[in-house]
Structures are given as structure tokens and as C-alpha cells.
């Protein structure tokens, strides 16, 4: 099934959720996060779509002014088509419904995105940091990330490009 057909199917079912955005490329659909769990269930179970595989879930920080984004790469083993879903979040309170129980791999993907960007996946049953220590401060892959100075008494040196050790 071609991308435009997939987009039309989603638009017919959830007319208010698809956001038109000219800056995104072919194969990407930006949607509103409020109905995300229903849309995800639809994407997985609709006989014409059958997206049975969540290939990747990652976060993107679009910069100081821009929002945080979650990006879901979906693939259908059955029908051999794929799309990318983009959901934008408010930088101050980034949250979206969890799809951990729809695609089980989402469990660790969401924990990783939460770890790196601080995006809260509501309804996730075990939303802890996955790579950083549990008591780490801040969200490392955000562009405004400030490194903490010490960690359990160990110095965390900040190194600037021109000055060397601070």
C-alpha cells in the first residue's frame, strides 16, 4: 500500500488528528498526540495496514524554541509497507500515551527515550531510566542539557573546546 493511501486511511478514521506539515518528507505523518493510543491500535489491527512491527522509537530535540518530538518507525511484515509517525510535545511538559502494551518492544524504547529526553509515556508500567543511573539529573540528549557537577562525590568535569579542562 502506498504512503498516500495509508495517510488517507488514517485521515478518514481520525480526521482531526493528522496535522498537515509541509516541512516533513515523504513517508512521515505528523499527528496530534491526544488520541495516540487509539491510532496506534488502529494502525496495528486494521486489516489494510497491519503495522505489526515497531522498528524504532526515538526522540528529537528541535532546538531552543521548537518542541520535543517522538518518532515512531512502523513497518508491516505482512504487507511490506512502512511509515514514520511524528508526535510533537510541549517542551515544558512533554507527555504522550504509552504504546508499550501494543508493541511490546516499546517498553525499552520508551524507557530509553524517557531517559534521554524526559518525555513521559503515560501508562507505561515500568517507566524508569534504562541507561543512566536512576539518580542521574537532567535529560542528556536535550539541547539545553546542563551537566551536573558531582555524582556521589565524584567530579563530573565539564570540558570546553577552547579552554580544555574547566
Amino acid at each position, binding site marked *: 500500500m502506498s504512503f498516500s493511501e495509508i495517510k488517507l486511511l488514517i485521515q478518514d478514521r481520525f480526521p482531526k488528528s493528522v496535522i498537515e506539515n509541509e516541512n516533513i518528507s515523504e513517508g512521515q505523518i505528523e499527528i496530534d498526540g491526544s488520541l495516540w493510543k487509539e491510532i496506534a491500535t488502529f494502525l496495528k489491527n486494521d486489516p489494510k495496514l497491519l503495522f505489526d512491527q515497531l522498528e524504532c522509537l526515538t526522540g528529537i530535540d528541535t532546538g531552543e524554541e521548537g518542541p520535543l518530538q517522538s518518532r515512531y518507525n512502523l513497518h508491516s511484515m505482512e504487507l511490506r509497507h512502512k511509515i514514520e509517525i511524528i508526535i510533537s510535545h510541549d517542551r515544558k511538559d512533554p507527555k504522550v500515551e504509552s504504546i508499550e502494551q501494543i508493541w511490546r518492544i516499546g517498553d525499552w524504547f520508551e524507557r530509553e527515550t524517557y531517559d534521554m529526553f524526559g518525555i513521559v509515556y503515560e501508562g507505561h508500567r515500568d517507566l524508569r531510566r534504562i541507561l*543512566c543511573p536512576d539518580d542521574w539529573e537532567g535529560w542528556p540528549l536535550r539541547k539545553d542539557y546542563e551537566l551536573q557537577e558531582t*555524582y556521589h562525590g565524584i567530579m563530573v568535569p565539564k570540558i570546553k573546546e577552547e579552554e580544555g579542562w574547566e
Partner: protein
Amino acid sequence: MGVLENKFNDNIVVGSLDKFLSWSRSTSPWFFQFGLACCAIEMMATAAARHDLERIGMMPRSSPRQADVMIVAGTVTMKMALRVKKLYEQMANPKYVISMGSCATSGGPYWQHGYHVLKGVDLVVPVDVYVPGCPPRPEALIEGLLKLQQLISEERPLTRKIT
């Protein structure tokens, strides 16, 4: 050995206990076997048949209680730093640390932008020998271990304080 020379039968060696202790320590420092990154592969290669660490008296132990030397082989992340410190504290005295490779010595390729990497394992445990390389070849590690053995053999545990 001065006045005691030729006063005993053959096969009896006379020496000072001090030197004997440091000699026996230096010739069998068992190392604590744990790998953190790619350096661990070189460490395993060093301990395996071709380079054969047991010919210089070193064998890997899997428990800190049985080990004398800790080879920090690889990138120490902040999360791991606390564990490394705990493992070091669990080792019995006298204990020695070898920092193997760039990452353990200074943070290596994570030196500038690696927020999660400890910039040198000497920030948490005292290091005796640094082995440079990324990762060091087994020959380099053996050189470092021989340096450590030399350090140990120069110690005088009865008359001087163990460092």
C-alpha cells in the same frame, strides 16, 4: 649472604624475610577478572594461550576477595564508577590497580563530550600503573604487568609501610 654463606647444606637459600615476602608477592599477583569494554578482549587475549599470563604467575580470579590486582579494562561510566570503587574496597590488602587503555586512564574518546564517562579511573581508586593504548596490545599489557611486578618486588612490607 655474608656470614651465613656456605654454612648450610645444598638447596637451602638464605635471605631476608622482607625481600622474600615481596618476591613471593611480586611473582604471583592474581588479577581480578572483569572487563568493561573492548580492552577486555585484549585482556582475555593476554590471559589466553598465545601470550599466557600464567607464565609470569598471573591468573584471573572471578572474586575480588581472591585477587591482588585489579585491571580496569575499558570505559568506566559514572554508573560503573561506584561499582568499581565498591569492588576495590572488597579486595584484600595489599592491592594494586592497573588502568588499561585510554578510557580508563583519561576518558579516551569520551574525553570531551561524554557526559556519562568517568574522566580517569584514578578519580575513584588509586592507580599504580597506567597502560596506554586504544586498546593496548597484549604485549603492552604484559609490559605494564611486569612494571607492576617490579614495583611490588621493590616493596619492603616489614620495614616500610605498604603504599
